[in-house]
């Protein structure tokens, strides 16, 4: 893995930045993809959002000053792009919690190999507000530290802990109500 500082220096050099950006795409696309996919749910949408994420990062290269890690910077763009995508497309992932279509849609998706209860978890997550959903996904699946999530979402650790607890309670209630 190439050193972050080395990549950052190359990103600032017009002659090397394209090659350096290629390294970034190769190095981080898989991690970013899963962050995006868990929000937008379908592969086609995740692919579109990931392309937009890298395109936006490329166009905003000058605004990246190396204050955070490259992955943190990219994750911030990816999460915002994913949530914007849902808002723009009025996607089922932001529909009301009474809408059963998400789990049904997922179970019919060839790129979803989860069980019915795993599809229901995705449906429950989709009912959460943006911050609760983002923090739940990063904590529950990626087991990220609150300090890392705080940098990505630009929210205090205290607020994130509160959001995570509320999200967990809502999802637990969701399953208990279906028992």
């Amino acid at each position, binding site marked *: 893995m190439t050193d972050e500082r080395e990549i950052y220096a190359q990103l600032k050099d017009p002659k090397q930045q*394209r090659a350096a950006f290629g390294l970034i795409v190769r190095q981080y*696309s898989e991690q970013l993809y899963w962050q995006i996919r868990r929000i937008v749910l379908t592969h086609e949408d995740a692919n579109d959002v990931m392309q937009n994420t890298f395109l936006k990062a490329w166009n905003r290269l000058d605004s990246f000053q190396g204050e955070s890690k490259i992955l943190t910077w990219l994750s911030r763009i990816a999460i915002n792009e994913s949530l914007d995508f849902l808002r723009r497309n009025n996607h089922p992932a932001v529909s009301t919690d009474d809408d059963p279509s998400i789990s049904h849609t997922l179970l019919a998706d060839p790129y979803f190999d989860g069980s019915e209860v795993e599809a229901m978890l995705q449906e429950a997550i989709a009912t959460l507000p943006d911050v609760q959903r983002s923090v739940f996904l990063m904590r529950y699946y990626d087991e990220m530290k609150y300090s890392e999530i705080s940098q990505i979402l630009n929210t205090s650790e205290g607020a994130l802990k509160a959001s995570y*607890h509320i999200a967990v309670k809502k999802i637990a209630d969701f399953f208990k109500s279906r028992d």
Partner: protein
Amino acid sequence: MNEEKYIEEQVGRRNPFTVPEGYFDNFADQMMASLPERQSRAQHVWLRPMRYAAAVVCVLAMGAMAWFALSSSPDVHQPLQVEAVQVSGDAAFDEATDYAMIDNYDIYACLSEE
């Protein structure tokens, strides 16, 4: 947290999503092939003062045009005022002419009086 354990027992933490075969292997190449050329920020920074200069020239030009247009067009609604201005302009001109016609002798005379 009990509720977190409850969710884990009910569902687990497994990633239930999949991708088409070879997706991650091909993504980077496709992404880089579709990436446009970047416009250098240095070019924008260099152009910025020229834009400001052009804006200032435009404002000055418009101001000058407005000033000439207003000063050259006679105000037909206020003829008396124009005449008064003209009179005062003539008086000032005469006074200036008087000073201009002072010769060396007049200057010596003025100095000797003091």
